[in-house]
């Protein structure tokens, strides 16, 4: 009996909570409401931070209102967050992690009037497009810097998950390093997390222990940069210019610059020219780039890297130009050929000179 009364009391508290919540205020706004769903906290100086820099730029646009939800787990939670954005009359939703693809597709089908844009996936619908940047181009250029600066010829790569996006980046990095230093090898450690500063730093240390003297990363925290600085070796940043975290170690970073793309999308949605396409812009649009190269890198190498960047922009050079062999020596891209987009989007093998497995 007593327990039931406690239960009833509990229910009373809950019903009070209900009551407080039911009154709701609707605000009528004609502004374009743009929502962002992030996988990690925006203060991370990494992936979500880079997207949020883009959001801040469109937030300044006339008649545009933005909001974001950070640290949303990929899966059912993501679906709910996007549903709530649609229910709250958001007009345009950007979701910036691969795992948001299927949830977004479900929500897009329920809200045909809302425009959805998914970053890094491959599915589209009538009101859902996807977008990404050719980060492998910037990775290649940072690989050139790393390859030129290494003395041990072992480059360490702290990487999140063995998915095509990351594998493609590691391959491009290795090819860039080999272009200036044929003896360079890339050692890969998987952390199985996008954002976990402690794990990433530990992973970097394990690479330092086996003799790596340049640490690169496909991670969202500056942990690996710090590990390199503490050990007195070099590092290559990712997402944003990470120099502030490791001023002595940081050679260059492969960076995202989403502002121009987000501005373009907002304009298109507003004037009705938006189409559900798959956008895969490259360094020529500035969506990916490299940061300023550290002065410790010899001028000659800097010049070489910038020349190569010019060639990529003018499409005179393709990062994945054959002949390219995989780890087992099997030819994957033939002489005179370049990798097609579907081949790159589904890349699940490492090039020769990468030490590690893709599982």
């Amino acid at each position, binding site marked *: 009996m007593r327990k039931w009364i406690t239960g009833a009391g509990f229910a009373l508290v809950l019903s009070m909570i209900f009551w407080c919540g039911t009154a709701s205020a609707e605000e009528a706004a004609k502004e374009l409401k743009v929502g962002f769903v992030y996988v990690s906290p925006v203060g991370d100086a990494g992936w979500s931070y880079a997207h949020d820099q883009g959001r801040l730029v469109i937030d300044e646009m006339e008649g545009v209102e933005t909001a*974001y939800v950070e640290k949303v787990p990929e899966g059912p939670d993501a679906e*709910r967050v996007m549903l709530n954005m649609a229910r709250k009359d958001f007009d345009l939703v950007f979701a910036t992690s691969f795992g948001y693809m299927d949830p977004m597709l479900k929500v897009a089908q329920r809200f045909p009037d809302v425009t959805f844009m998914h970053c890094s996936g491959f599915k589209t619908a009538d009101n859902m497009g996807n977008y990404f940047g050719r980060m492998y181009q910037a990775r290649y250029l940072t690989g050139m810097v790393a390859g030129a600066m290494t003395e041990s010829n072992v480059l360490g790569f702290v990487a999140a998950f063995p998915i095509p996006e990351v594998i493609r980046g590691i391959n491009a990095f290795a090819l860039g390093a080999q272009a200036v230093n044929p003896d360079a090898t890339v050692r890969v450690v998987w952390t199985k997390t996008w954002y976990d500063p402690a794990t990433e730093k530990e992973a970097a240390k394990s690479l330092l222990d086996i003799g790596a003297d340049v640490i690169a990363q496909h991670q969202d925290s500056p942990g690996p940069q710090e590990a390199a600085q503490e050990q007195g070796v070099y590092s290559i940043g990712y997402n944003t210019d990470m120099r502030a975290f490791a001023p002595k170690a940081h050679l260059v970073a492969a960076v995202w610059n989403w502002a121009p793309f987000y501005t373009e999308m907002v304009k298109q949605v507003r004037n009705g020219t938006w189409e559900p396409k798959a956008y895969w812009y490259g360094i020529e649009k500035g969506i990916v780039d490299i940061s300023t190269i550290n002065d410790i890198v010899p001028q000659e190498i800097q010049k070489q890297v910038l020349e190569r960047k010019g060639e990529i922009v003018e499409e005179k050079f393709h990062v994945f130009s054959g002949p390219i062999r995989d780890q087992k020596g099997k030819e994957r891209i033939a002489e005179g050929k370049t990798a097609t987009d579907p081949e790159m989007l589904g890349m699940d093998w490492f090039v020769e000179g990468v030490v590690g497995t893709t599982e």
Partner: protein
Amino acid sequence: MNQWLRITKRQERPAWRSCLVLAGAILFSLAVSAFLLAVQGRPPLRGLWLLFQGAYGSLWAIEDCLNKAVPIYLCSLGVAVAFRLQVWNIGAEGQYALGAVGATWAALSFPGLPAVFLIPAMMAVAFAAGALWGLIPAILKLRMRANEIIVTLMLNYIAILFLDYLVYGPWKDPVSFGFPMTPIFPPAAVIDRIGGTGLHWGLALCVVCGLLIWVFFRFTRLGYELKASGENVRAARYARLPYSRLVLLVMALSGALAGWAGFVEASATLNRLQPSIMVGYGYTAIVVAWLARLNPLYIGFAAFLLAGLRVGVENLQLELQVPAAFGQIMEGLILLSVLAGGFFIDYRLSLRRRS
């Protein structure tokens, strides 16, 4: 204990006092949260109101909370069963993973079966897989005196890595561009929605399991033996209660319930298996079980409350742009205040009179 204060154990524990203490603890944590909002320069009362609105302020929000509470409830119920016997199963996370793997195996192996056969098959395999993962530490505990806290915790990592292996390897969808996920389940393997609502039948499974566990502890001899052994293992052994068998039973049951949580998540919410199914429900379950003092009914309330907090914080973020960490801070605050409040249910604090 102190010059000014005296702590005495209460003789009676009336229900109204428990309610009062609980309400007080929740109000206290809300007040601290409001203060924290104010410190960040956000309107505190509007913030709390947005939180409630996001969690319980509309029909769909309540549906979202209920759906989110389902896996937490099943895991927590399982954990509570083991805790009743003072067997510390920290392995709900791994048992949940194995349940999801088991259900997925059934869904991928018999895609042609109609739902009436396929769903029970998935349930059976998930049940068995979860139970197996619970039995391993139970057997190790009984045979080798291995500490179940350590073993269940370690088995979590093994289970999650096994799940990773499957979705990165043999079960990977050939058309997923190399991304780790199984093919989408056939429609027959997906748990239906209840009527025209956003709720799914996993909720009914929770109600049934909760009732059965309650009846089991209240009215069966085995349930009584379990409770008695949980109070005092030595006395139970002396009374010739079958302690070993009880340990095996609770760990299997505990694992099986967590396994069903994995089945429900894979089937009803993800419609496939992918690594993001692991979001820590198995650990949340432990918190919920303690918050609810291992009572099946209260576990329901606590799971609903915690789910509401997690769902509501998203609304708070969306409207006020508070950091995501704020939700975790609130969660911690509520847990601490409620657990600390438990002190006032059992003890009274009075001023010491100067003599």
